[in-house]
């Protein structure tokens, strides 16, 4: 079973922080707006601190989840299929037979480029839930993976993949 590059935690942590900041900004801002005398005269004094506390708690949760996600993520190129284990709350184990692979993308977001990482996305003809992305790969590993998936998909092809 292959693990992701540990550096992927940096990407996930940053993303978690950005999202938490946006969400926290929205709820704390809303709390501030509500407590203005013109809007709600008898607003409880604890509203703003409560919103801030909630935002901080959610941010901490997000950070924990982002950290934990690395520990859970595993994938393996098996004989006939690609096997992936992921998910902090909902643990998902996906099996994608190579016969079913439609195409393979490799993708690098700006954040991934600055941390020197890449993502490989494997598409099937199934519903969206079975399209799988493998994040946190070094660019060379991503290239290798894309190439070997391509080879494996061609070797096993022969039928309309629908």
């Amino acid at each position, binding site marked *: 079973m292959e693990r992701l590059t540990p550096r992927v935690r940096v990407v996930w942590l940053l993303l978690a922080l950005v999202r938490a900041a946006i969400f926290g900004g929205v709820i704390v801002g809303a709390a501030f707006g509500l407590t203005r005398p013109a809007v709600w005269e008898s607003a409880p004094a604890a509203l703003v601190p409560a919103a801030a506390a909630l935002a901080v708690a959610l941010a901490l949760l997000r950070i924990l989840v982002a950290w934990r996600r690395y520990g859970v993520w595993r994938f393996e190129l098996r004989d006939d299929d690609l096997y992936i284990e992921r998910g902090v709350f909902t643990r998902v184990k*996906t099996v994608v*037979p190579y016969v079913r692979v439609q195409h393979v993308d490799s993708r690098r977001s700006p954040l991934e480029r600055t941390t020197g990482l890449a993502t490989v996305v494997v598409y099937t003809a*199934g519903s*969206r839930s*079975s399209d799988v992305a493998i994040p946190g790969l070094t660019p060379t590993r991503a290239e290798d993976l894309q190439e070997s998936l391509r080879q494996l998909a061609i070797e096993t092809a022969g039928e309309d993949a629908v």
Partner: protein
Amino acid sequence: MTTLHPASVAVRSLSRSLNTGFLFFVVGIVASPGGNGTNLLSVVGLVAIGIVLGIVYEFAYYRRFRYELTDDTFDVTSGVLARRNRELPLGRVQNVDIRQNVLGRVLGIAAVHIETAGGGQTEVSLQYVDEAEARRLRRQLRDGASTDTADADETGTAVTESDAASADDETVLFDIRPHELAILSVFTIDPGASLLGGIALSFASGFDPVALFPANRLGGLPGPETGVIAIAWGLLLFVLAAWLISAVLTFTRYYGFRLTRVGDELYYERGLLQRYSGTIPLEKVQTLTITESIPFRWFGYAALSVETAGYAPGQSESRGSESAIPLADADRVAELARAIEPFGPVDLESPPRRARERYAVRYLLVVAAAVGVAFLLARYTGLIRQWYVLAALAVLAPIAAHLKWRNRGVRLDDRYILARTGFWRRTTKVVPYYRVQAVLHQATIFQRRRRLASVTADTASSASLLGRAATAHDVDTDRGLELQAVIEDRLQDRLRARQRQRSVGRWFRDGIDPTDEDSATESDGEE
């Protein structure tokens, strides 16, 4: 290259005039010169311009539209401003539908829609061609699709052969019976109908629910005359109207439903005013779904839908119509489903008992939350007083949990996966192993507490976009892993078997030396 039916200019113009005419009507109202009120003349003028533009556009569309059926593709050249050349490989065609509305039936023209897998829309729609031409196209598209990569001259002979075959090989699989249609009409709730009913009722009452209240007859009743009772009365009328309209709509939609089998294709026809007909190639069937909803299940009725990768039943009306049996005796449905995919008996293995506990706990939590909300409402507002009454709902939780548990199950047949779920709307999915795209083993944090997991066999049918893929809910974690492995193994086995079968078939047909493996697999492109 063939053009559309000349009458299509008139019919298309008519529907377009309604659209553009309305658009220009709005434009005319808004941009009417003079400033004080609308100028009738300019509005009428703009509407006329809109209609004329529509007609000109449709004429140009008609002049530009060409289609041609070649030996292995269906080519369409179309477009007035932006031109488009589309080639559809016949082997990729999933469904061919013919639709005829009342006007079309009078004029003898029909719309043909061709679906392939992938793409969000219908790939080719011919609006409109001659009825006979529509039937010819459907037949030839079907034959082209089934002889796929064979040589050109071979396709010629194949067409004539199956032409002869289709004349006498048509077996009627299903014919809706009057009582089935009646029950279907009475119990189906059409979401569109409730909207229509609401609009009709709003107009009838002059947008005032009180107007519908027969005050003179119910004078003896207690309570405020125009308050809650009037609203309840309005609601009752609304439900009645929606029910009536939906019954009529369902009746006209499924009137004369017939499903026949011609060679390796299913062919359906239905509709009283608007005729729908279409084909479902059996070798493209992805999933069968047997649905037994609650009022129908009590009377022993069920529905069947056949999903292909092109579209699935129940999608928006613009895209493909239902390739399914709306309602029939459960036995007939089972028999028919087995005629399409010969699966074995449906004795499913139930989820472990701890799954039932999980459901009970879940429902109890829901009840607790409801009680909590009621308590808060009672505490801070005067809306309700007896908040604790809701706690009586807790009695229902074990019953509901048991029913949910009883209606779930899975079975791995030799060739099919059978998965059932749902109490109110019980669906049993039949998925051939070789259609599975990926197998997912999922366990939420709550499922893991009880060592449970859900195994989903994902297929390419478009219905699973709505999260309705065949899923074995709440099986034991280890059993789930086993299911996942077995499904994957059998998928590979079945694929290999099918490939062997096809190669052998091709050797026979093409007379290729069986030792010449490479050329056999090379021509082995499609299915």
